[in-house]
């Protein structure tokens, strides 16, 4: 074309940059706006320390499953079975812990293995027999739900031993209590210092990356965006950390979640496996012809999903302190919605871990906020559905405009 001569590295203007990245900033802004909105309409209940702790506990399993689901969706597939896997894992953990009296340190890894096997059982049909994942996992959803009823004999099992419950109710102990300057205000010094350290590291790492990029001539985002983004994240994180510190500290689940988010962000952005999954989702034939074993890759994304669903299943079972046949009904939809709100593409190849996490929290904050406001489950569903549609429309609109 005529204008293709501008191959020089002309710096994009701030407006252009915003236009090209409106999705990512938009998502963050949306989360903050939704949080502030509910903070206001609930008269400040949303950010009460107890409620923040609740928010984390209530959403951790959605976030954890969204990590696996994002990989599945990026690979060009879908997994409808995760809600049933959650229920089945809850059931067998109950059998092993309550009926057989096995210790938690045996049951937890065993359940993760079983989850992996359940993922593998579905991944096999998708990857090697080329049956559409929608059908395979729809079948899996029914089969695993059925198995749950069989295993539990239709009745809930509980309560669970203490050490298993710690999975979801435990907090990181305050081993730094001696540093506490204001014991009457701050209950847990570890929480506060951990968050401060994390924010410090994030800012340090961000600046370091920018400097390295500059040295290598790679484009940076405009400094003003970097600064605003860092400021928003720092303020939100420090505030939440402070609130948690005035209550019982950091929930174990939050730590597990943070570690997993970091791990999967790393996998998707830096590892060869991640890169190959994105390539496969973008064009499976070209990826296969590039010498990549796409079948094996697909298989492992389902195994991975199974393991994460098992972890989520144990967390929720521990939280409810009871394994019921109806556990996890409809979870798959929340998880999938989180990924799509977070910008994943239904046709594969596109999506970010951080997007799925923010998507999950948008859903979570809305659930929580609406419950506090006393909005019924009927309207909650309606509103969540509209938010999902609006988020995806926003994507499509931007793409067509661009």
């Amino acid at each position, binding site marked *: 074309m005529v204008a*293709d001569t501008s191959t020089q590295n002309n710096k994009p203007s701030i407006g252009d940059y915003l236009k090209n990245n409106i999705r990512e900033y938009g998502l963050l802004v949306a989360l903050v706006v939704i949080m502030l909105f509910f903070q206001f309409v609930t008269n400040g209940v949303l950010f009460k320390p107890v409620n923040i702790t609740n928010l984390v506990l209530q959403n951790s399993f959605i976030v954890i499953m969204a990590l696996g689901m994002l990989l599945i969706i990026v690979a060009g597939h879908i997994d409808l079975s995760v809600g049933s896997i959650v229920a089945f894992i809850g059931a067998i953990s109950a059998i092993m812990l309550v009926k057989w009296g096995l210790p938690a340190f045996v049951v937890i890894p065993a359940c993760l293995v079983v989850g992996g096997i359940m993922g593998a059982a579905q991944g096999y049909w998708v990857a090697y027999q080329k049956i559409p994942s929608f059908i395979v996992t729809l079948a899996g959803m029914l089969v695993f739900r059925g198995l749950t009823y069989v295993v539990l004999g239709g009745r809930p099992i509980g309560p669970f031993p203490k050490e298993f419950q710690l999975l979801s109710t435990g907090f990181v102990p305050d081993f730094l209590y001696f540093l506490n300057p204001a014991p009457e205000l701050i209950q847990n010094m570890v929480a506060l210092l951990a968050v401060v350290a994390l924010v410090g590291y994030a800012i340090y790492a961000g600046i370091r990356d920018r400097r390295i990029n500059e040295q290598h001539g790679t484009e940076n985002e405009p400094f003003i965006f970097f600064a605003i983004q860092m400021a928003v994240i720092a303020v939100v994180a420090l505030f939440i950390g402070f609130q948690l510190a005035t209550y019982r500290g950091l929930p174990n689940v939050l730590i597990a979640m943070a570690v997993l988010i970091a791990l999967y962000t790393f996998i998707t952005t830096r590892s*060869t496996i991640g890169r*190959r999954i994105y*390539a496969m989702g*973008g064009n499976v034939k070209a990826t296969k*012809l590039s*010498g990549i074993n796409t079948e094996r890759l697909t298989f492992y994304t389902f195994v991975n999903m199974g393991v994460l669903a098992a972890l989520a299943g144990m967390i929720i079972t521990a939280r409810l302190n009871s394994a019921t046949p109806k556990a996890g009904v409809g979870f798959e939809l929340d998880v999938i919605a989180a990924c799509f709100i977070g910008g994943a593409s239904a046709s594969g190849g596109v999506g970010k871990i951080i997007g799925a996490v923010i998507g999950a929290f948008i859903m979570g904050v809305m659930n929580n906020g609406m419950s506090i406001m006393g909005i019924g489950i009927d309207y909650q569903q309606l509103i969540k559905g509209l938010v999902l549609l609006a988020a995806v429309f926003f994507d499509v609109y931007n793409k067509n405009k661009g």
Partner: protein
Amino acid sequence: MDNIILEMRGITKTFPGVKALDNVSFKVREGEIHALVGENGAGKSTLMKVLSGVYPAGTYEGEIHYGGEARRFSTISDSEDLGIIIIHQELALVPLLSIAENIFLGNEIASNGVIHWPQTFARTQELLKKVGLSESPATLITDIGVGKQQLVEIAKALSKKVRLLILDEPTASLNETDSDALLKLLMEFRTQGMTSIIISHKLNEIRKVADQITILRDGGTVETLDCHSEDIGEDRIIKGMVGRAMEDRYPPREPKIGETLLEVKNWNVFHQQHRDRQFLHDVNFTVRAGEVVGIAGLMGAGRTETAMSLFGKSWGHKITGEVKMRGKPVDVSTIPRAIDAGLAYVTEDRKQLGLVLINNIKENTTLSNLKAVASSGVIDDRKEAKVASDYRSKLRIRSHSIYQETVNLSGGNQQKVVLSKWLFTNPEVLILDEPTRGIDIGAKYEIYTIINQLAAEGKGILMISSEMPELLGTCDRIYVMNEGRIVAELSKAEASQESIMRAIMRSGEKH
């Protein structure tokens, strides 16, 4: 003098940041075949989209006069109502519907929404006869070849009372026999008084059928040549297209041929779908270091299938035969093994099979050899960027940066990205399947130059192409394939369009 059916005056069409058409004028006489040529991006398709109402009146400047009146088309159906029918390069047929259903799709012979099948079938039969097809109207589109599909598209156009037929690269995916049939059909329509505009890269075909040729370059009209007042040679057309005389379309090369690299013996392959049908029979060939070897043949001769079955059994089944690299047997049973053995295969269809279009240049470049820029599964960003930048400058890929998505690149630059990807696996033998299909002449020259460089570096090149001049211009040796067999091996001295066609024809008689 003549009756002008269409005149486009001062057409200017701007996209954000790009002037795609700049004051283009275009005049077509009634009853002629008018060829529209130009490099990719010259504005041919844009001009036709303006004409047919894809870009509605008001989104461009200029005037369209058609049939003696000024027209402002705001939708495609406006132009179709007046008999302007466009057949796009990518066929718009529904594969799992029948010929009859496709021809009358959206235009069904029906009353109150109920389709009148007997009449539909009768009309279809009539139309098919006009385009020389004897298929039943109930045949599914997926069951007929691309050549016949193209004819069905034309029959569909005829069903709409076409006065001006526009064909956008109608023969790009056709073999020579099918192309000839199509061109003959156009000439027949001309005797019946129909006007056609044909967009094509195949200059020999244009010379065969066109009455006038309009050349576009960089969004502007260069000239309109009248084929009857002077003899227009291909070089004359190319000069207009590229703006300079291209004495030699193929860069010169001094072949330095070394030892035998790839040797394939008794390669037998059965058909992928029709599993009891043997498709390739005892295929034998060799490729030596520094040598460019061509495979000529018609569409369906088994050239792509040979390459794909060799490259990790990507096509066919019950594959038997021997593959040696530098005299040693190698295992090519999976794609990773074939790559390890030193093979690389640049596919025919770069958009579907060559590139991950939504990924950027960097990610596509390293896809086949990610290990080389990673340690223990973690990608080294800087190393990867360096590799991609090196190939980008070495192969002169024109882009903003290595972070540009490949979907936004031109055909020639996309092909260079695919080549980068395979060069980064450091292969000994590169199989290039139609490496210059659908790219403009300037970019073709660059691809040939790259091929020459690779041969000079001692790599073996196996080149599959449907364009015989290209094989003749670049290869040291040419194998001719027909119906799954190698039917001739011609040295550079022996090879000519005639000798290749003779080999194909003679082998056809034997079976």
